[in-house]
């Protein structure tokens, strides 16, 4: 269904977007299987209506909101972002969404809130991956509060002007363009503000390979492969990976004084 076009944004890249076909047929969404083609094949079963997101934890006004209400919070913007997967491939995706801060404002975070935890949907009957294990469900991710409030961080409800396809994390997902793709949780049902750093799913699965920050960084290799280059989907030659996925001008100051080798 049509959702866009959405307001143009100064944060959008002018790089050519990856084709809709590739954006919607090459996905990591382990709840639907671990092959890249699995989500496109199986995610049609995901129940996206009705959908509510509860925002709780260290907030003044905890709230559970329906999708209709959420979509009215802020005008939808088109954000054409680079997406860099930790596996060494990348895409350019025209998201439709709004800054996460619009959502967080609704609940009024307390001064003690330092982190934001994102918890994604578990539907055992529609998600074959949940029944098989592989990861510790529900899939959870986290950001530092200042990262979550950064204007580049959005909640996306669509791409290419349409409602988000299920395999891309319908009906509402996080998009944090300067971090590896897995940080941007799909099909989010709960957002929790906390005072301690959340333990994310991939940190539990392989702590030496996936850190809490997971900022795109060509100089810090994954233990099993180099992160210096990436293959943009649809291209033959590899590109050099950019620090913070090319968003260093906007976000590098969030990490002044932080040893990015240690806090990878």
């Amino acid at each position, binding site marked *: 269904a049509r959702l866009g076009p959405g307001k143009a944004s100064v944060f959008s890249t002018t790089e050519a977007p990856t084709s809709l076909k590739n954006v919607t047929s090459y996905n990591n969404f382990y709840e639907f299987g671990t092959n*890249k083609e699995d989500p496109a094949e199986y995610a049609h079963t995901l129940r996206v209506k009705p959908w509510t997101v509860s925002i709780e934890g260290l907030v003044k006004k905890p709230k559970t909101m329906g999708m209709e209400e959420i979509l009215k919070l802020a005008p939808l913007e088109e954000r054409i972002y680079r997406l860099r997967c930790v596996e060494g491939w990348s895409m350019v995706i025209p998201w439709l969404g709004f800054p996460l801060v619009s959502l967080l404002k609704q609940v009024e975070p307390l001064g003690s809130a330092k982190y934001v935890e994102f918890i994604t949907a578990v539907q055992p009957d529609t998600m074959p991956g949940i029944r098989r294990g592989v990861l510790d469900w529900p899939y959870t991710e986290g950001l530092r509060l200042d990262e979550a409030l950064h204007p580049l961080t959005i909640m996306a409800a669509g791409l290419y002007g349409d409602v988000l396809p299920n395999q891309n994390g319908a009906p509402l997902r996080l998009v944090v363009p300067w971090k590896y793709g897995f940080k941007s949780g799909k099909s989010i049902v709960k957002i929790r503000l906390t005072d301690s750093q959340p333990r994310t799913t991939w940190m539990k699965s392989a702590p030496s390979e996936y850190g809490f920050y997971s900022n795109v960084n060509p100089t810090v290799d994954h233990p099993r492969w180099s992160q210096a280059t990436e293959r943009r989907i649809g291209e033959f030659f*590899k590109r050099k990976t950019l620090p913070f996925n090319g968003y260093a001008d906007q976000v590098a100051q969030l990490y002044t004084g932080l040893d990015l080798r240690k806090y990878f």
Partner: protein
Amino acid sequence: MLLRPHGLKLNGLKLFVFTASLAPLGWYAWGIQTDNLGANPIEAVTRGLGTWALNFLLITLAATPLRHYAGWTWPLIVRRMLGLFAFFYASLHLTTYLWFDQFFDWLAIGKDIFKRPFITVGMTTFLLLIPLAATSNARAIRKLGGRRWQQLHRMVYLCGALAVLHYTWMVKADIRKPLIYWVILTALLSTRMVWQIRKAQCQQFRK
């Protein structure tokens, strides 16, 4: 070969196995031609060729147990060819990595080999396969002598294990498929252990 009574049949078998063994290569060539390999065709080809190198390695290892349990002799007749196909696919797999993944950036390749265990193991497997492929002819058997040749070619067991390890260490979280390969490899190798033990017991008994 043609002089043998079953020569024609034999040549037919070899021709069939040869053609069938080229099918995976044909599949990927056709897939590239028709843009039918998904969003990341280079990755699909690299992984596919690796999988087939491993498949051929395990098929080769199945020849002896098949004779033992099913009484089939034809797998032994084509075993050398299948083994060479394992090497063929391993070479193509390595080539796709060197070319399309690294674009012959030898410094990056060197770093990869020393820093990343799954690459180290993959490269070791390939190096160990070279002498096996190079001695896959009658002249080499004559030159080495049957016993030494056989000892050398037992290295294929190690190659099988290293290849499955290479696969296991490459995978991110879902190791179900590598596990299937471990189960098959264990089955193929343990039958040989069982025979060895039985043989040893029989010899002891005779004494």
